[in-house]
């Protein structure tokens, strides 16, 4: 996980597996930013090869707090498996997500 912030824009790359073991680490890192006002966050998940519902919970919590502070969260580089997870849970409709190979939005 790499995070970098400048001028209210947070860019990050998440790598590896997000499961019950690694999700708390991710949550902790994201929580550092969640109370900032008007934050534009773009997280690249291209190198995430596995994510379970615990990981999903982390992103939803982040999305909720950033949104309530007037900011925006975008998740990009979602694999087909991750995209399905967001679609099934209905989160794909409320969050800004972008799958692999459908870039340029």
């Amino acid at each position: 996980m790499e995070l970098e912030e400048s001028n209210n824009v947070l860019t990050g790359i998440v790598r590896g597996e997000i499961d019950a073991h690694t999700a708390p680490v991710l949550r902790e890192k994201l929580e550092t930013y969640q109370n900032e006002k008007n934050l534009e966050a773009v997280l690249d998940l291209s190198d995430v090869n596995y994510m379970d519902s615990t990981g999903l919970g982390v992103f939803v919590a982040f999305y909720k707090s950033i949104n309530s502070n007037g900011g925006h969260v975008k998740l990009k580089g979602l694999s087909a498996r991750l995209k399905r997870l967001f679609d099934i849970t209905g989160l794909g409709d409320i969050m800004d997500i972008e799958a692999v190979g459908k870039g340029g939005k």
Partner: protein
Amino acid sequence: MVQKIDSQYKEILRQYMQRQSEQNLYDGQNFSRQLIAENTSPEEVISMHKAAMQEMYEDLPDVVWHSFDLLIEMMISYGLALQERESLLQRQEELRVEMDLAANVQETLLKTTTPSLEGLDIGLLSIPARKMNGDYVYFVSDQEGHAGIAVADVIGKGLPAALCMSMVKFGMDSLNNSRARPKDVLDVINRVVEKSIDDSMFVSMFYGSYNAGEATMTYGSAGHEPAILYRAKSETFSELNSKGLLLGVSPAAKYEEHTVHLEQGDLLIMMTDGVTEGRNEEGFIEREVIFELIHQMKDEPAQVIVRHVYDELVRMQNAELSDDFTLVIYKKV
């Protein structure tokens, strides 16, 4: 007692000084286990060693005895760490007992009765990965052939998930309506969950309302793994998709509902992601594998089918499921 231990140790030491054999070392190891069992602290062991040495080799230079005194001081903190470990082990045992009790309470609290419906064979299996189950199946039924089923999965595991599940149960209890429409049920439970839970805790839920007279199932989903319909006539599997957001994310969420009609031999398969998200060294266990397992047993009673799927998935994952597993099959007979 202390004197006996002292003289035992002196004897082991004396023999070792003479021969330095493997057997002497082995005696020493066994003796140290006995000392640990009796809560002897490290500094006491070294004091004992010093006393034994003084008796046997009294004319050693003073620097040797002084060095032991320093070592004894050094060991005091180790002795405290050991005591701390003992009390942690005891505390852990207490927690384990409490968890067992809580798991029992949960089982009693969330108990549900599988309805008996004309023309429908129901198979159900729900197995927690840890002690507390984050999956939940709830039935509500009446005498006129109407039955509702909720299959829910709390995101998160263990104790917090179990507490959250109780909330869903009380929400369902307060509705207590076997004819309730799925979209209304999901709407009500969404509000209950949204008001009361932590920001990173959510529930996915499938709700199906079965009408035995017409053999129809009306269903809706709140971010839940889609149910699967197996058609006996064409021998095909298809996903029953229904749009709807996870419970607890937004109070404004709206839920769809759809209806399917079941023919003889059709199967309605409802589950949690513990069934579909299985993995082993070779990668993910694809849904087609699960379909195949069900297809093999399609002529068996519903309970036999769910058991077969569970047993085979456990086998494929080397007897270790990492998530709670819940599978319900409705078979039209």
